[in-house]
């Protein structure tokens, strides 16, 4: 048969038509998805029995109850615990992503010993025995040399049995240098010690207040116990509560409040005293409280009348005088007014006077220990361990003064000053600690002026980290003795931030330890055991769990069952029995506050001619703060107006942008007296002209590739400003300049 051109084409066309009409193309498309999808590396999650375990979240000071969904032994999701007094079944974005910490690549899986230079990231895996021996040997030598005060310890909380064990260890070892955190919560507690003489925690009764005046507090940006705040906002219409946000930036909190009052940054305390002026001048204050239960009112009044006149306050704060007087009237005439302080999520303490001004404002209207007011809660006293015996070395060591200067003299009300701690030995070699223990704190990321902190850490000969994760500070350690994560351990979690009742939460392991980690409590007891003598005698427990059970005593059974202990019948003492100051009254000007607290707003560091703009850090609920960093899920929620690739966006007003010829997305160099960072520009009508707002929580250099190397850590650009009255870091921002990069 001869195949000519015609029949060849006919055969071809006929064949194509036939194939198209057959099921073959459809079969092929279907098969193509099967062939291209069945890869062995796409995991098939193992099925099993569904179960639930309850615990307490420890990712922030909020203390929420969590329910963990499990498949057999495997936690697969974290949800809020129904009926928990703090969060009532709710959960926040960070808690929801908590399992990514448990299983994530940034876990320290076994004790590590540094092999390369500091910070190079070269480690050798060692056994627990070898690790503990090495620490014990170093501790023993330092003590034998008679310099026990050369041991320092830093934590990110001073509450509960773990800090108490560490503190006890430090005491019997012979060092006063136990350094806790300094946050807005600590500033509130310090102010309450000074003004009311009460040593405890501070609660804000947001559920019962009918007017909440927030002085820059990011109630929806991670302040206090975040879920509780979300719920208080959400239900406020049912309660007819008004929320007024005073803020220099249209934060989420400002956006969702009933009213946003824009203010020059750093002048919130001045505005509080400006409101006090009107309340005093128009005699709107609570006379029963002021006349019978307070002291120092006359001098406070004199000071406010002289230095915080409406015209002056309007000029400093940028809030018009008529709005100040209107706000004062609204606050004074509300049934249950509540003023709240602590900037952003409250990670920095700020000037003591700012906190005192807000407490004084609450006191003026009688919102102290009343429904809807500020509550001074006594420390939930449950840690009653017998005083330890101290040997002569310990006695001598404890007589030395603390390196941070907290708790004595000028700063008698303050517990810990981490910023000052590092600054002190920056200048004087003799002050450099020889061994530093770091538990749950990440000062190299969280403290202002990270370069100075790095330089200080460089001088410490031996650093031991107990971190569960390879964070910035752990990277600088010589030895890492990893703790279990919060999902793998027992621990008491007392006093959720801002909560209004005595409360102790309990974290319980929801899963067996995933790696070769050890409970910090057990590690402290083991180290004490190696040091022998009075040191081990101070720890009469075989292990941490025994210590915890013993300490919680009759509360233990109920806590294991419910996950918390709460004093249901708690009521604040009446005003005549409440204050334990020398006068037994509420001290408007604070007791033993060395310098005059009412000196006005703290200025931003830097001169205005070189640095015409002001950099203000801002907190966002989608960027975790504190010692931990964002897990991958949360990175997915960060908007493209905040981070693109490795570039962080700073918010500026279009007016500022025009002045410096910047546009949306322009790469720019942001310079402050402390450093510089590469940023991009985001234009926003929600920020005051002249300000540059930068998110906190970015610019990590540690953890994992999902977080590290993205953006700039704002703490590199902002330096601390020491508050004369407390020693706290009072900085709220810094002067800055922007130039096209």
């Amino acid at each position: 048969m001869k195949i000519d051109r015609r029949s060849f084409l006919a055969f071809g066309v006929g064949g194509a038509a036939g194939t198209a009409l057959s099921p073959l193309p459809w079969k092929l498309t279907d098969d193509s998805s099967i062939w291209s999808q069945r890869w062995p590396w796409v995991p098939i999650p193992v099925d099993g029995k569904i179960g639930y375990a309850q615990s307490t979240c420890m990712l922030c000071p909020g203390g929420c109850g969590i329910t963990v969904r499990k498949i057999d032994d495997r936690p697969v999701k974290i949800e809020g615990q129904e009926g928990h007094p703090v969060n009532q079944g709710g959960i926040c974005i960070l808690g929801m992503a908590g399992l990514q910490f448990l299983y994530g690549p940034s876990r320290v899986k076994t004790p590590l010993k540094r092999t390369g230079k500091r910070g190079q990231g070269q480690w050798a895996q060692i056994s627990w025995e070898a690790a503990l021996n090495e620490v014990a040997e170093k501790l023993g030598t330092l003590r034998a040399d008679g310099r026990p005060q050369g041991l320092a310890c830093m934590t990110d909380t001073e509450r509960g049995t773990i800090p108490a064990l560490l503190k006890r260890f430090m005491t019997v070892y012979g060092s006063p240098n136990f350094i806790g955190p300094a946050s807005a919560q600590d500033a509130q507690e310090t102010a309450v010690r000074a003004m009311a003489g009460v040593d405890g925690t501070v609660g804000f009764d947001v559920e019962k207040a009918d007017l909440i005046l927030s002085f820059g507090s990011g109630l929806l940006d991670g302040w206090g116990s975040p879920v509780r705040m979300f719920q208080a906002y959400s239900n406020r219409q049912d309660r007819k509560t008004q929320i007024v946000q005073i803020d220099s930036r249209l934060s989420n909190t400002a956006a969702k409040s009933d009213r946003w009052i824009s203010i020059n940054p750093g002048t919130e305390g001045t505005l509080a005293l400006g409101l006090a002026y009107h309340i005093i001048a128009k005699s709107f204050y609570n006379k029963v409280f002021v006349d019978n239960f307070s002291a120092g009112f006359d001098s406070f009044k004199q000071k406010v009348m002289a230095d915080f006149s409406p015209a002056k306050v309007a000029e400093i704060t940028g809030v018009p005088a008529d709005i100040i007087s209107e706000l004062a009237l609204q606050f004074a005439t509300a049934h249950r007014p509540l003023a709240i302080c602590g900037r952003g999520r409250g990670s920095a303490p700020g000037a003591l006077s700012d906190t005192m001004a807000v407490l004084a404002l609450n006191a003026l209207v009688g919102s102290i220990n009343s429904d809807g007011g500020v509550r001074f809660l006594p420390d939930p006293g449950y840690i009653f361990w017998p005083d330890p015996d101290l040997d002569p070395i310990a006695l001598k060591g404890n007589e030395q003064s603390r390196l941070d200067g907290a708790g004595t003299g000028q700063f008698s009300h303050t517990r810990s000053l981490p910023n000052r701690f590092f600054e002190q030995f920056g200048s004087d070699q003799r002050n450099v600690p020889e061994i530093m223990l770091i538990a749950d704190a990440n000062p190299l990321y969280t403290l202002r002026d990270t370069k100075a902190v790095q330089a200080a850490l460089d001088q410490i000969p031996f650093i031991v980290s107990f971190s569960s994760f390879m964070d910035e500070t752990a990277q600088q350690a010589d030895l890492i003795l990893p703790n279990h994560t919060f999902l793998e351990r027992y621990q008491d979690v007392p006093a959720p931030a801002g909560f209004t009742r005595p409360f102790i939460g309990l974290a319980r392991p929801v899963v067996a330890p995933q790696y070769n980690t050890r409970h910090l409590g057990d590690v402290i007891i083991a180290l004490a055991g190696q040091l022998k003598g009075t040191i081990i005698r101070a720890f009469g427990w075989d292990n941490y769990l025994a210590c915890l059970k013993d300490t919680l005593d009759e509360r233990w059974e109920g806590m294991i069952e419910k996950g918390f202990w709460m004093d249901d019948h708690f009521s604040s003492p009446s005003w005549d029995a409440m204050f334990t100051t020398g006068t037994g009254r509420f001290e408007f000007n604070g007791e033993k506050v060395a310098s005059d607290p009412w000196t006005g707003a703290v200025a931003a560091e830097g001169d205005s001619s070189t640095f015409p703009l002001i950099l203000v850090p801002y907190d966002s609920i989608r960027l975790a703060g504190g010692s931990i960093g964002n897990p991958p899920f949360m990175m997915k929620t960060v908007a493209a107006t905040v981070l693109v690739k490795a570039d962080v966006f700073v918010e500026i007003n279009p007016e500022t942008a025009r002045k410096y010829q910047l546009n949306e997305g322009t790469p720019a160099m942001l310079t402050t007296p402390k450093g510089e960072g590469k940023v991009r520009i985001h234009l926003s009508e929600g920020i005051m002209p002249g300000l540059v707002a930068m998110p906190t929580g970015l610019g990590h250099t540690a953890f994992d590739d999902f977080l590290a190397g993205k953006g700039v850590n704002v703490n590199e650009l902002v330096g601390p400003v020491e508050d004369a009255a407390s020693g706290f870091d009072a900085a709220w921002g810094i002067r800055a300049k922007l130039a096209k990069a």
Partner: protein
Amino acid sequence: MKQAHGKTKKFGMVIDLDKCTGCGTCMVACMAENNVPFRKDETDKRLSITWMQVYKLTNGKSYPDAEICYLPRPCQHCEGHHSGHSPCVSVCPATATDYDSETGIVSQIYTRCFGCRYCMAACPYHARYFNWWDPVWPGDMEKYLSPNVSPRMRGVVEKCSFCFHRYQLAMEKAILEGRHELEEQEYQTSCTQACPAGAITFGDLNNPEHKVHQLAQPDPHHHGRPKNPKVFRLLERLHTNPKIYYFSSKEWVRRAGDNYVKDESKSDHHE
């Protein structure tokens, strides 16, 4: 129209934009529930898979009169003008996405999808996402994967399923107990459950006893258009008949829910 296996459902949501704080918990709740993968760089939002996405709206005014409103956007589970005429369902050549007339849920069957992405082009809400890479869970994160949702592979489209596996689990339980109907609280999506502000309400829009029905007041004669004047749906004029309703007390927010030519009068909102 009572059938042996229960009444026809139309599951939907009402999201209270006055309450939404933009915290993003719903987004993470969705990721954690549905084994959503992640990559080292998630800043290119065209590539970042977020079944639930929270958008930020602004009122366009200058400082300090500027306002912000957040708008969470899951799959809108469009019904179209007749059952199943969703923009995506009508273009899928592989029947990988389908409209379930019993629940009103738009499904996505990964193993049928061969990645042509017609549905993504058709979806006016950008609610669909393509897997450009195989998923990788670093460290030991594979351990947290839920067996109720299959991990997806490179080359397929995925989107919000209204946590359909939760519906299946709830139905299984109900049937074992001899029931054919679910209580309102028995089937709730992960985002609804997680929202700390209580901004999301989920339920059967056909059931007058469910909160979603009471809040949205869907008008059955006008393809579910809300009768509540403070409630709106996104891009109403496209007639996609979505099942996500938004509540806002603010006029500018409600107007932002649709496209308007400049100076178009407000009365045109409901055509």
